[in-house]
Protein backbone atom coordinates (compact mmCIF):
# COMPACT_ATOMS: atom_id res chain seq x y z
CA UNK A 1 0.00 0.00 0.00
CA UNK A 2 1.23 3.49 -0.80
CA UNK A 3 0.23 6.36 1.45
CA UNK A 4 0.97 10.04 0.87
CA UNK A 5 0.59 12.36 3.86
CA UNK A 6 0.34 16.09 3.17
CA UNK A 7 1.95 18.07 5.96
CA UNK A 8 2.49 21.77 6.62
CA UNK A 9 5.08 23.70 8.54
CA UNK A 10 3.23 26.28 10.62
CA UNK A 11 4.14 28.99 13.11
CA UNK A 12 3.63 27.83 16.68
CA UNK A 13 0.75 30.06 17.76
CA UNK A 14 0.82 28.76 21.33
CA UNK A 15 3.65 31.11 22.23
CA UNK A 16 1.78 34.12 20.86
CA UNK A 17 2.15 35.75 17.49
CA UNK A 18 4.74 38.33 16.47
CA UNK A 19 4.10 41.08 13.95
CA UNK A 20 6.25 43.17 11.65
CA UNK A 21 5.87 46.96 11.97
CA UNK A 22 3.59 46.93 8.89
CA UNK A 23 1.16 44.55 10.62
CA UNK A 24 2.07 41.43 8.66
CA UNK A 25 3.02 38.27 10.48
CA UNK A 26 6.69 38.01 11.41
CA UNK A 27 7.11 34.34 10.50
CA UNK A 28 10.90 34.52 10.86
CA UNK A 29 10.60 35.44 14.56
CA UNK A 30 8.27 32.57 15.38
CA UNK A 31 9.10 28.96 16.10
CA UNK A 32 7.72 26.51 13.56
CA UNK A 33 6.16 23.11 14.15
CA UNK A 34 4.53 20.35 12.15
CA UNK A 35 0.83 21.20 12.05
CA UNK A 36 -0.86 19.10 14.78
CA UNK A 37 -3.68 17.64 12.67
CA UNK A 38 -1.12 16.71 9.98
CA UNK A 39 1.07 15.04 12.57
CA UNK A 40 -1.89 12.92 13.67
CA UNK A 41 -2.41 12.05 9.99
CA UNK A 42 1.22 11.03 9.69
CA UNK A 43 0.96 8.91 12.84
CA UNK A 44 -2.11 7.19 11.40
CA UNK A 45 -0.15 6.39 8.23
CA UNK A 46 2.80 5.06 10.24
CA UNK A 47 0.47 2.80 12.23
CA UNK A 48 -0.93 1.39 8.99
CA UNK A 49 2.66 0.85 7.89
CA UNK A 50 3.44 -0.97 11.16
CA UNK A 51 0.37 -3.13 10.85
CA UNK A 52 0.06 -3.92 7.15
CA UNK A 53 3.30 -2.69 5.64
CA UNK A 54 3.07 0.46 3.56
CA UNK A 55 5.28 3.01 1.89
CA UNK A 56 4.69 6.39 3.49
CA UNK A 57 5.65 9.52 1.57
CA UNK A 58 5.31 12.98 3.09
CA UNK A 59 4.51 15.88 0.79
CA UNK A 60 4.70 19.56 1.62
CA UNK A 61 4.53 22.86 -0.21
CA UNK A 62 6.37 25.86 1.15
CA UNK A 63 9.59 27.79 1.36
CA UNK A 64 12.87 25.83 1.07
CA UNK A 65 13.11 25.73 4.88
CA UNK A 66 9.94 23.60 4.96
CA UNK A 67 12.40 20.78 4.29
CA UNK A 68 12.84 20.67 8.11
CA UNK A 69 9.32 19.42 8.63
CA UNK A 70 9.88 16.64 6.08
CA UNK A 71 13.03 15.54 7.94
CA UNK A 72 11.06 15.47 11.17
CA UNK A 73 8.53 13.18 9.46
CA UNK A 74 11.32 10.94 8.15
CA UNK A 75 12.74 10.73 11.66
CA UNK A 76 9.35 9.56 12.86
CA UNK A 77 9.37 6.78 10.30
CA UNK A 78 8.19 8.12 6.92
CA UNK A 79 10.02 6.65 3.92
CA UNK A 80 10.28 9.54 1.50
CA UNK A 81 9.90 13.31 1.50
CA UNK A 82 8.82 15.57 -1.35
CA UNK A 83 9.08 19.36 -1.12
CA UNK A 84 7.24 21.48 -3.66
CA UNK A 85 8.80 24.92 -3.70
CA UNK A 86 8.81 27.62 -6.33
CA UNK A 87 8.51 31.37 -6.30
CA UNK A 88 5.51 31.26 -8.66
CA UNK A 89 3.58 29.23 -6.09
CA UNK A 90 3.80 31.90 -3.37
CA UNK A 91 0.77 33.77 -2.05
CA UNK A 92 -1.57 30.87 -2.84
CA UNK A 93 -5.03 30.66 -1.28
CA UNK A 94 -6.66 27.28 -0.66
CA UNK A 95 -7.74 26.90 -4.31
CA UNK A 96 -4.20 27.47 -5.63
CA UNK A 97 -2.65 25.40 -2.84
CA UNK A 98 -4.91 22.43 -3.53
CA UNK A 99 -4.21 22.76 -7.27
CA UNK A 100 -0.47 22.69 -6.54
CA UNK A 101 -0.65 19.65 -4.28
CA UNK A 102 -2.98 17.84 -6.69
CA UNK A 103 -0.48 18.59 -9.48
CA UNK A 104 2.28 16.97 -7.39
CA UNK A 105 0.10 14.01 -6.41
CA UNK A 106 -0.65 13.24 -10.07
CA UNK A 107 3.05 12.41 -10.36
CA UNK A 108 2.98 10.07 -7.37
CA UNK A 109 1.57 6.61 -6.71
CA UNK A 110 -1.00 6.50 -3.93
CA UNK A 111 -3.75 4.32 -2.55
CA UNK A 112 -4.50 6.63 0.33
CA UNK A 113 -3.89 10.34 0.81
CA UNK A 114 -4.06 11.73 4.34
CA UNK A 115 -4.12 15.42 5.21
CA UNK A 116 -4.76 17.15 8.50
CA UNK A 117 -8.27 18.52 8.91
CA UNK A 118 -6.91 22.07 9.15
CA UNK A 119 -3.72 24.01 9.79
CA UNK A 120 -3.44 26.17 12.88
CA UNK A 121 -2.32 29.23 10.92
CA UNK A 122 -5.20 29.42 8.45
CA UNK A 123 -7.77 27.16 10.16
CA UNK A 124 -9.69 26.78 6.88
CA UNK A 125 -10.03 22.97 6.64
CA UNK A 126 -10.38 23.42 2.86
CA UNK A 127 -7.26 22.04 1.23
CA UNK A 128 -7.92 18.33 1.87
CA UNK A 129 -11.44 18.25 0.38
CA UNK A 130 -10.31 20.48 -2.50
CA UNK A 131 -7.42 18.14 -3.40
CA UNK A 132 -9.87 15.21 -3.46
CA UNK A 133 -12.10 17.12 -5.85
CA UNK A 134 -9.22 17.93 -8.22
CA UNK A 135 -8.16 14.25 -8.20
CA UNK A 136 -11.76 13.04 -8.55
CA UNK A 137 -11.54 10.66 -5.59
CA UNK A 138 -13.77 10.24 -2.50
CA UNK A 139 -13.05 12.26 0.62
CA UNK A 140 -13.78 11.53 4.26
CA UNK A 141 -13.12 14.54 6.50
CA UNK A 142 -12.79 14.79 10.29
CA UNK A 143 -11.50 11.26 10.86
CA UNK A 144 -11.35 10.24 14.51
CA UNK A 145 -10.45 6.65 13.70
CA UNK A 146 -9.06 4.99 10.59
CA UNK A 147 -8.43 1.44 9.50
CA UNK A 148 -7.93 -0.46 6.27
CA UNK A 149 -9.97 -3.45 5.16
CA UNK A 150 -9.04 -5.01 1.83
CA UNK A 151 -9.19 -2.30 -0.82
CA UNK A 152 -11.20 0.09 1.38
CA UNK A 153 -10.76 2.38 4.35
CA UNK A 154 -13.16 2.31 7.29
CA UNK A 155 -13.31 5.68 9.00
CA UNK A 156 -15.13 7.11 11.99
CA UNK A 157 -16.20 10.53 10.73
CA UNK A 158 -16.91 13.03 13.50
CA UNK A 159 -19.95 15.34 13.45
CA UNK A 160 -21.25 17.70 16.15
CA UNK A 161 -23.47 15.22 17.98
CA UNK A 162 -22.59 11.87 16.39
CA UNK A 163 -20.16 10.01 14.27
CA UNK A 164 -20.67 7.99 11.10
CA UNK A 165 -18.70 4.86 10.32
CA UNK A 166 -17.92 5.25 6.62
CA UNK A 167 -16.38 2.95 4.07
CA UNK A 168 -14.65 4.26 0.96
CA UNK A 169 -12.81 2.43 -1.76
CA UNK A 170 -9.20 3.41 -2.30
CA UNK A 171 -7.80 5.55 -3.77
CA UNK A 172 -9.35 8.10 -1.46
CA UNK A 173 -8.46 11.03 0.78
CA UNK A 174 -8.98 11.25 4.53
CA UNK A 175 -8.55 14.36 6.68
CA UNK A 176 -7.33 13.66 10.20
CA UNK A 177 -8.30 15.21 13.51
CA UNK A 178 -5.58 15.74 16.12
CA UNK A 179 -7.73 13.56 18.43
CA UNK A 180 -7.06 10.60 16.12
CA UNK A 181 -4.00 9.47 18.07
CA UNK A 182 -0.94 10.44 20.08
CA UNK A 183 1.91 10.90 17.56
CA UNK A 184 5.12 9.04 18.27
CA UNK A 185 8.43 10.75 18.94
CA UNK A 186 11.32 10.80 16.55
CA UNK A 187 13.84 8.06 17.31
CA UNK A 188 17.56 8.87 17.71
CA UNK A 189 18.37 6.53 14.83
CA UNK A 190 15.58 8.06 12.81
CA UNK A 191 16.91 11.58 13.41
CA UNK A 192 20.39 10.43 12.36
CA UNK A 193 19.11 8.86 9.14
CA UNK A 194 16.74 11.70 8.38
CA UNK A 195 19.59 14.18 8.56
CA UNK A 196 21.27 12.48 5.60
CA UNK A 197 18.17 11.38 3.73
CA UNK A 198 17.58 12.77 0.29
CA UNK A 199 14.55 15.02 -0.05
CA UNK A 200 12.96 15.24 -3.48
CA UNK A 201 12.52 18.87 -4.46
CA UNK A 202 9.99 19.76 -7.11
CA UNK A 203 9.22 23.06 -8.78
CA UNK A 204 6.46 24.35 -11.05
CA UNK A 205 7.64 22.16 -13.94
CA UNK A 206 7.10 18.99 -11.92
CA UNK A 207 3.39 19.61 -11.41
CA UNK A 208 1.15 17.63 -13.76
CA UNK A 209 -1.96 18.93 -15.51
CA UNK A 210 -2.16 22.28 -13.78
CA UNK A 211 -2.46 25.59 -15.59
CA UNK A 212 -0.42 28.62 -14.55
CA UNK A 213 -3.65 30.51 -14.08
CA UNK A 214 -4.47 28.25 -11.11
CA UNK A 215 -1.23 28.74 -9.22
CA UNK A 216 0.19 31.19 -6.70
CA UNK A 217 -1.18 34.61 -5.88
CA UNK A 218 -2.40 35.16 -9.46
CA UNK A 219 -4.33 31.89 -9.45
CA UNK A 220 -6.06 32.61 -6.15
CA UNK A 221 -9.76 33.55 -6.39
CA UNK A 222 -9.75 35.05 -2.89
CA UNK A 223 -7.80 38.21 -2.20
CA UNK A 224 -7.00 39.95 1.06
CA UNK A 225 -8.71 43.33 1.42
CA UNK A 226 -7.41 44.06 4.90
CA UNK A 227 -5.53 42.27 7.67
CA UNK A 228 -5.00 43.46 11.19
CA UNK A 229 -4.23 42.48 14.71
CA UNK A 230 -7.35 41.49 16.54
CA UNK A 231 -8.77 44.32 18.63
CA UNK A 232 -10.11 42.93 21.89
CA UNK A 233 -12.73 44.68 23.91
CA UNK A 234 -10.27 45.10 26.77
CA UNK A 235 -10.29 44.27 30.41
CA UNK A 236 -12.96 45.49 32.78
CA UNK A 237 -12.59 45.63 36.55
CA UNK A 238 -10.44 43.18 38.44
CA UNK A 239 -10.72 42.75 42.20
CA UNK A 240 -8.79 40.73 44.77
CA UNK A 241 -11.01 40.33 47.84
CA UNK A 242 -11.65 37.69 50.46
CA UNK A 243 -14.25 35.06 49.51
CA UNK A 244 -17.23 36.66 51.29
CA UNK A 245 -16.50 40.07 49.75
CA UNK A 246 -16.04 38.41 46.35
CA UNK A 247 -19.51 36.90 46.63
CA UNK A 248 -21.05 40.27 47.54
CA UNK A 249 -19.21 41.85 44.65
CA UNK A 250 -20.51 39.31 42.10
CA UNK A 251 -24.08 39.43 43.42
CA UNK A 252 -23.95 43.24 43.31
CA UNK A 253 -22.87 43.20 39.67
CA UNK A 254 -25.54 40.64 38.72
CA UNK A 255 -28.18 42.90 40.29
CA UNK A 256 -26.77 45.99 38.61
CA UNK A 257 -27.00 44.21 35.24
CA UNK A 258 -30.50 42.87 36.03
CA UNK A 259 -29.42 39.26 35.72
CA UNK A 260 -31.17 38.54 39.03
Amino acid at each position, binding site marked *: MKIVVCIKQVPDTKGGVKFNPDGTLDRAAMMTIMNPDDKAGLEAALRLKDEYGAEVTVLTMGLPKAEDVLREALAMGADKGVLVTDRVLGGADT*WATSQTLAGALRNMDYDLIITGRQAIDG*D*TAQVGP*QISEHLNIP*VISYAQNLKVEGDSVIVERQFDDRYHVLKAKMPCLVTALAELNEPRYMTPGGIFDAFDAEITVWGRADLKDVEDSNLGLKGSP*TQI*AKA*SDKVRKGAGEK*VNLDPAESVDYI*VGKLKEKHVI
Partner: protein
Amino acid sequence: MNLEEYKGVYVFAQQVDNVINSIAFELIGKGKDLADALGTDVTAVLVGSGVKGLADELAEYGADRVIVIDDPELKEYRTEPYAHALASVIEKYKPEIFLVGATAIGRDLGPRVSARIHTGLTADCTQLEIGDFPMNPVPGKEQKHNQLLMTRPAFGGNTIATIACPDFRPQMATVRPGVMQKRERKPGVKANVEEFNPGFTPDHKYVEILEIVKAVSDTVDIMDAKILVSGGRGVGSAENFKLLEDLAEVIGGTVSCSRAVVDAGWKPKDLQVGQTGKTVRPNVYFAIGISGAIQHLAGMEESDLIIAINKDEGAPIFDVADYGIVGDLNKILPALTEKLKAEIAAK
Protein backbone atom coordinates in the same frame (compact mmCIF):
# COMPACT_ATOMS: atom_id res chain seq x y z
CA MET B 1 -17.19 34.11 -16.58
CA ASN B 2 -19.74 36.88 -16.98
CA LEU B 3 -20.09 38.14 -13.43
CA GLU B 4 -23.22 40.13 -14.24
CA GLU B 5 -25.20 36.92 -14.80
CA TYR B 6 -24.85 35.96 -11.16
CA LYS B 7 -27.68 37.27 -8.97
CA GLY B 8 -29.17 36.72 -5.55
CA VAL B 9 -28.03 35.58 -2.13
CA TYR B 10 -28.27 31.81 -1.54
CA VAL B 11 -27.84 29.95 1.72
CA PHE B 12 -27.45 26.25 2.42
CA ALA B 13 -30.27 25.28 4.82
CA GLN B 14 -28.52 22.51 6.72
CA GLN B 15 -30.78 19.85 8.21
CA VAL B 16 -29.93 16.67 10.09
CA ASP B 17 -32.60 14.02 10.74
CA ASN B 18 -35.03 16.41 9.01
CA VAL B 19 -34.57 19.09 11.65
CA ILE B 20 -33.26 22.39 10.35
CA ASN B 21 -30.08 23.51 12.06
CA SER B 22 -30.14 26.95 13.70
CA ILE B 23 -27.28 28.03 11.40
CA ALA B 24 -29.73 28.00 8.47
CA PHE B 25 -31.84 30.72 10.11
CA GLU B 26 -28.74 32.69 11.04
CA LEU B 27 -27.57 32.59 7.42
CA ILE B 28 -30.99 33.70 6.19
CA GLY B 29 -30.88 36.59 8.70
CA LYS B 30 -27.47 37.75 7.50
CA GLY B 31 -28.39 36.97 3.90
CA LYS B 32 -31.33 39.39 4.17
CA ASP B 33 -28.98 42.22 5.22
CA LEU B 34 -26.72 41.51 2.25
CA ALA B 35 -29.66 41.13 -0.13
CA ASP B 36 -31.08 44.47 1.05
CA ALA B 37 -27.75 46.16 0.35
CA LEU B 38 -27.68 44.63 -3.15
CA GLY B 39 -31.38 45.09 -3.93
CA THR B 40 -31.99 41.36 -4.32
CA ASP B 41 -33.53 38.49 -2.34
CA VAL B 42 -32.60 35.39 -0.34
CA THR B 43 -32.98 31.80 -1.53
CA ALA B 44 -32.58 28.90 0.90
CA VAL B 45 -31.36 25.63 -0.60
CA LEU B 46 -32.86 22.68 1.27
CA VAL B 47 -31.22 19.32 0.61
CA GLY B 48 -32.34 15.96 2.00
CA SER B 49 -34.89 13.17 1.78
CA GLY B 50 -38.50 13.93 2.67
CA VAL B 51 -37.64 17.52 3.57
CA LYS B 52 -40.12 19.51 1.51
CA GLY B 53 -42.31 20.12 4.55
CA LEU B 54 -39.49 22.10 6.17
CA ALA B 55 -39.64 24.85 3.56
CA ASP B 56 -42.28 26.87 5.44
CA GLU B 57 -40.05 27.18 8.46
CA LEU B 58 -37.32 28.71 6.29
CA ALA B 59 -39.87 31.16 4.91
CA GLU B 60 -40.98 32.14 8.39
CA TYR B 61 -37.40 33.07 9.21
CA GLY B 62 -37.14 35.26 6.12
CA ALA B 63 -36.29 33.16 3.05
CA ASP B 64 -37.96 34.67 -0.02
CA ARG B 65 -37.58 31.47 -2.01
CA VAL B 66 -36.74 27.87 -1.17
CA ILE B 67 -35.18 25.43 -3.63
CA VAL B 68 -35.85 21.87 -2.46
CA ILE B 69 -33.64 19.02 -3.62
CA ASP B 70 -35.30 15.89 -2.33
CA ASP B 71 -33.83 12.47 -3.11
CA PRO B 72 -33.38 9.20 -1.20
CA GLU B 73 -29.61 9.41 -1.82
CA LEU B 74 -29.61 12.56 0.34
CA LYS B 75 -31.10 11.03 3.47
CA GLU B 76 -27.86 11.19 5.47
CA TYR B 77 -25.10 13.68 4.80
CA ARG B 78 -22.46 12.39 2.45
CA THR B 79 -19.99 14.66 0.70
CA GLU B 80 -20.54 13.59 -2.89
CA PRO B 81 -24.30 13.69 -3.38
CA TYR B 82 -24.57 16.92 -1.34
CA ALA B 83 -21.73 18.51 -3.33
CA HIS B 84 -23.47 17.47 -6.54
CA ALA B 85 -26.72 19.02 -5.28
CA LEU B 86 -25.17 22.41 -4.47
CA ALA B 87 -22.92 22.52 -7.53
CA SER B 88 -25.97 21.80 -9.71
CA VAL B 89 -27.94 24.61 -8.05
CA ILE B 90 -25.05 26.99 -8.67
CA GLU B 91 -24.74 25.96 -12.32
CA LYS B 92 -28.45 26.33 -12.94
CA TYR B 93 -29.37 29.40 -10.90
CA LYS B 94 -26.05 31.33 -10.85
CA PRO B 95 -26.12 32.96 -7.43
CA GLU B 96 -23.99 35.99 -6.67
CA ILE B 97 -23.36 34.93 -3.06
CA PHE B 98 -23.53 31.45 -1.51
CA LEU B 99 -23.32 31.04 2.27
CA VAL B 100 -22.80 27.76 4.12
CA GLY B 101 -22.55 27.16 7.87
CA ALA B 102 -19.04 26.48 9.19
CA THR B 103 -20.24 23.24 10.77
CA ALA B 104 -18.71 19.78 10.57
CA ILE B 105 -20.89 19.36 7.47
CA GLY B 106 -20.39 22.79 5.87
CA ARG B 107 -16.63 22.79 6.30
CA ASP B 108 -16.46 19.56 4.26
CA LEU B 109 -19.14 20.45 1.73
CA GLY B 110 -18.09 24.06 1.04
CA PRO B 111 -14.55 23.27 -0.12
CA ARG B 112 -15.66 20.37 -2.32
CA VAL B 113 -18.30 22.56 -4.02
CA SER B 114 -16.03 25.58 -4.45
CA ALA B 115 -13.35 23.36 -6.00
CA ARG B 116 -15.90 21.81 -8.38
CA ILE B 117 -17.16 25.11 -9.71
CA HIS B 118 -13.88 27.01 -9.45
CA THR B 119 -14.55 29.90 -7.14
CA GLY B 120 -13.08 31.22 -3.89
CA LEU B 121 -14.30 30.16 -0.47
CA THR B 122 -13.59 32.08 2.73
CA ALA B 123 -13.73 29.93 5.84
CA ASP B 124 -15.32 30.53 9.24
CA CYS B 125 -16.45 34.11 8.66
CA THR B 126 -17.59 36.17 11.63
CA GLN B 127 -18.64 39.26 9.71
CA LEU B 128 -20.05 39.81 6.22
CA GLU B 129 -20.80 43.08 4.48
CA ILE B 130 -21.16 44.60 1.06
CA GLY B 131 -18.47 47.10 0.07
CA ASP B 132 -15.75 48.09 -2.35
CA PHE B 133 -12.69 46.11 -3.34
CA PRO B 134 -10.04 47.34 -2.95
CA MET B 135 -11.56 49.03 0.08
CA ASN B 136 -9.67 52.24 -0.73
CA PRO B 137 -8.94 53.28 -4.33
CA VAL B 138 -5.56 52.08 -5.64
CA PRO B 139 -4.11 53.94 -8.66
CA GLY B 140 -4.12 51.77 -11.76
CA LYS B 141 -6.49 49.19 -10.28
CA GLU B 142 -10.21 49.04 -10.87
CA GLN B 143 -12.22 49.47 -7.68
CA LYS B 144 -15.16 47.07 -7.82
CA HIS B 145 -18.36 47.95 -6.01
CA ASN B 146 -20.97 45.74 -4.33
CA GLN B 147 -18.48 43.05 -3.38
CA LEU B 148 -18.92 40.64 -0.51
CA LEU B 149 -16.31 41.50 2.13
CA MET B 150 -15.75 38.48 4.35
CA THR B 151 -14.03 38.90 7.70
CA ARG B 152 -12.54 36.01 9.60
CA PRO B 153 -10.11 35.32 12.41
CA ALA B 154 -6.85 33.55 11.60
CA PHE B 155 -3.72 32.42 13.40
CA GLY B 156 -5.68 30.98 16.27
CA GLY B 157 -7.70 34.19 16.66
CA ASN B 158 -4.65 36.45 16.86
CA THR B 159 -5.40 38.30 13.64
CA ILE B 160 -8.45 39.15 11.60
CA ALA B 161 -8.49 39.35 7.83
CA THR B 162 -11.06 40.69 5.41
CA ILE B 163 -11.22 38.74 2.16
CA ALA B 164 -12.89 39.43 -1.19
CA CYS B 165 -13.50 37.27 -4.25
CA PRO B 166 -13.71 39.93 -6.97
CA ASP B 167 -13.31 37.87 -10.16
CA PHE B 168 -15.25 34.67 -9.52
CA ARG B 169 -18.86 33.85 -8.71
CA PRO B 170 -20.54 32.93 -6.53
CA GLN B 171 -18.68 34.58 -3.70
CA MET B 172 -18.68 31.74 -1.17
CA ALA B 173 -18.23 31.80 2.58
CA THR B 174 -18.66 29.42 5.45
CA VAL B 175 -20.00 31.27 8.50
CA ARG B 176 -19.38 30.46 12.14
CA PRO B 177 -22.49 29.22 13.93
CA GLY B 178 -23.77 31.45 16.73
CA VAL B 179 -22.38 34.68 15.32
CA MET B 180 -25.06 36.02 12.94
CA GLN B 181 -28.50 37.04 14.19
CA LYS B 182 -31.66 35.26 13.09
CA ARG B 183 -34.66 37.37 12.20
CA GLU B 184 -37.75 37.10 14.29
CA ARG B 185 -39.92 34.20 13.18
CA LYS B 186 -43.11 35.29 11.43
CA PRO B 187 -45.57 32.39 11.57
CA GLY B 188 -47.62 31.86 8.43
CA VAL B 189 -45.28 33.60 6.01
CA LYS B 190 -44.86 31.60 2.81
CA ALA B 191 -42.03 31.47 0.32
CA ASN B 192 -41.92 30.57 -3.32
CA VAL B 193 -40.97 26.86 -3.19
CA GLU B 194 -39.31 25.27 -6.17
CA GLU B 195 -38.33 21.63 -6.53
CA PHE B 196 -35.22 20.67 -8.40
CA ASN B 197 -33.54 17.32 -8.90
CA PRO B 198 -30.28 17.16 -10.86
CA GLY B 199 -30.25 13.33 -10.67
CA PHE B 200 -28.12 11.25 -8.33
CA THR B 201 -26.21 8.29 -9.73
CA PRO B 202 -23.92 6.64 -7.20
CA ASP B 203 -20.31 6.39 -8.39
CA HIS B 204 -16.92 5.68 -6.77
CA LYS B 205 -17.11 8.95 -4.83
CA TYR B 206 -20.23 7.89 -2.93
CA VAL B 207 -19.03 6.51 0.39
CA GLU B 208 -20.95 3.80 2.19
CA ILE B 209 -22.44 4.48 5.63
CA LEU B 210 -21.91 1.40 7.80
CA GLU B 211 -23.18 2.82 11.07
CA ILE B 212 -24.44 6.01 12.69
CA VAL B 213 -23.54 6.48 16.33
CA LYS B 214 -25.31 9.34 18.07
CA ALA B 215 -23.86 10.88 21.20
CA VAL B 216 -26.26 10.56 24.09
CA SER B 217 -26.85 13.97 25.59
CA ASP B 218 -29.84 15.32 27.45
CA THR B 219 -28.34 18.74 28.07
CA VAL B 220 -29.34 22.07 26.57
CA ASP B 221 -27.24 23.05 23.58
CA ILE B 222 -24.72 25.50 25.06
CA MET B 223 -25.15 27.70 21.99
CA ASP B 224 -28.76 28.38 23.01
CA ALA B 225 -28.06 29.02 26.71
CA LYS B 226 -28.61 32.53 28.12
CA ILE B 227 -26.29 31.91 31.06
CA LEU B 228 -23.24 29.68 30.88
CA VAL B 229 -21.25 28.53 33.87
CA SER B 230 -18.06 27.42 32.23
CA GLY B 231 -15.22 25.57 33.91
CA GLY B 232 -11.58 25.02 33.00
CA ARG B 233 -8.63 23.02 34.18
CA GLY B 234 -8.63 25.03 37.43
CA VAL B 235 -11.82 23.28 38.53
CA GLY B 236 -9.50 20.37 39.29
CA SER B 237 -11.63 17.29 38.72
CA ALA B 238 -14.80 15.95 37.16
CA GLU B 239 -16.36 15.65 40.64
CA ASN B 240 -15.62 19.29 41.43
CA PHE B 241 -17.84 20.39 38.52
CA LYS B 242 -20.63 19.83 41.05
CA LEU B 243 -19.84 23.34 42.33
CA LEU B 244 -20.56 24.74 38.85
CA GLU B 245 -23.66 22.60 38.38
CA ASP B 246 -25.08 23.88 41.66
CA LEU B 247 -24.48 27.49 40.66
CA ALA B 248 -25.96 26.88 37.21
CA GLU B 249 -29.08 25.35 38.69
CA VAL B 250 -29.70 28.28 41.03
CA ILE B 251 -29.21 30.91 38.36
CA GLY B 252 -30.91 29.05 35.51
CA GLY B 253 -27.73 28.46 33.58
CA THR B 254 -26.02 25.63 31.73
CA VAL B 255 -22.57 24.19 32.36
CA SER B 256 -19.97 24.38 29.63
CA CYS B 257 -16.20 23.96 29.64
CA SER B 258 -12.84 24.60 28.04
CA ARG B 259 -10.87 22.23 25.85
CA ALA B 260 -8.58 21.17 28.72
CA VAL B 261 -11.63 19.76 30.50
CA VAL B 262 -12.66 17.70 27.47
CA ASP B 263 -9.10 16.48 26.97
CA ALA B 264 -9.02 15.40 30.63
CA GLY B 265 -12.24 13.46 30.08
CA TRP B 266 -14.19 15.44 32.70
CA LYS B 267 -16.90 16.64 30.29
CA PRO B 268 -18.09 15.60 26.79
CA LYS B 269 -17.06 17.50 23.70
CA ASP B 270 -20.49 18.99 23.01
CA LEU B 271 -20.01 21.23 26.05
CA GLN B 272 -16.72 22.65 24.79
CA VAL B 273 -16.45 26.38 24.09
CA GLY B 274 -13.73 27.70 21.82
CA GLN B 275 -12.14 27.50 18.44
CA THR B 276 -12.34 23.72 18.20
CA GLY B 277 -15.60 23.66 20.16
CA LYS B 278 -18.60 25.95 19.93
CA THR B 279 -18.93 29.70 19.63
CA VAL B 280 -21.26 31.05 22.28
CA ARG B 281 -22.58 34.46 23.15
CA PRO B 282 -24.81 34.17 26.18
CA ASN B 283 -26.05 37.09 28.25
CA VAL B 284 -23.71 36.03 31.05
CA TYR B 285 -20.61 33.88 30.81
CA PHE B 286 -18.98 32.71 34.04
CA ALA B 287 -15.39 31.66 33.31
CA ILE B 288 -14.35 29.61 36.30
CA GLY B 289 -10.83 28.30 36.58
CA ILE B 290 -10.34 29.02 32.88
CA SER B 291 -6.98 30.61 32.08
CA GLY B 292 -8.23 32.03 28.78
CA ALA B 293 -6.11 30.61 25.97
CA ILE B 294 -6.68 32.55 22.78
CA GLN B 295 -8.52 29.59 21.26
CA HIS B 296 -10.99 29.71 24.14
CA LEU B 297 -11.47 33.47 23.94
CA ALA B 298 -12.31 33.13 20.24
CA GLY B 299 -15.38 31.11 21.23
CA MET B 300 -16.80 33.30 24.00
CA GLU B 301 -15.54 36.85 23.92
CA GLU B 302 -18.72 38.16 22.28
CA SER B 303 -20.70 37.25 25.40
CA ASP B 304 -22.60 40.25 26.78
CA LEU B 305 -21.22 39.98 30.29
CA ILE B 306 -18.13 38.00 31.28
CA ILE B 307 -17.40 37.23 34.92
CA ALA B 308 -14.11 35.43 35.57
CA ILE B 309 -12.93 33.72 38.72
CA ASN B 310 -9.34 32.56 38.72
CA LYS B 311 -6.64 32.28 41.33
CA ASP B 312 -3.95 33.39 38.90
CA GLU B 313 -3.95 37.18 38.79
CA GLY B 314 -2.13 37.15 35.44
CA ALA B 315 -4.57 34.79 33.66
CA PRO B 316 -5.42 36.13 30.17
CA ILE B 317 -9.13 35.57 30.84
CA PHE B 318 -9.02 38.79 32.89
CA ASP B 319 -8.14 40.70 29.70
CA VAL B 320 -11.64 40.09 28.32
CA ALA B 321 -13.63 39.83 31.55
CA ASP B 322 -16.00 42.64 32.50
CA TYR B 323 -15.60 41.63 36.13
CA GLY B 324 -12.61 39.63 37.26
CA ILE B 325 -12.31 38.08 40.68
CA VAL B 326 -8.90 36.86 41.78
CA GLY B 327 -9.56 34.10 44.27
CA ASP B 328 -10.19 30.46 45.10
CA LEU B 329 -13.20 29.07 43.26
CA ASN B 330 -13.59 26.35 45.90
CA LYS B 331 -14.31 28.99 48.52
CA ILE B 332 -16.21 31.47 46.38
CA LEU B 333 -18.60 29.20 44.44
CA PRO B 334 -20.41 27.46 47.33
CA ALA B 335 -20.92 30.80 49.10
CA LEU B 336 -22.06 32.45 45.87
CA THR B 337 -24.57 29.69 45.20
CA GLU B 338 -26.01 30.00 48.73
CA LYS B 339 -26.24 33.77 48.54
CA LEU B 340 -27.94 33.72 45.12
CA LYS B 341 -30.38 31.10 46.36
CA ALA B 342 -31.31 33.41 49.23
CA GLU B 343 -31.54 36.49 47.00
CA ILE B 344 -33.77 34.73 44.47
CA ALA B 345 -35.96 33.20 47.21
CA ALA B 346 -36.44 36.64 48.76
CA LYS B 347 -37.94 38.04 45.55
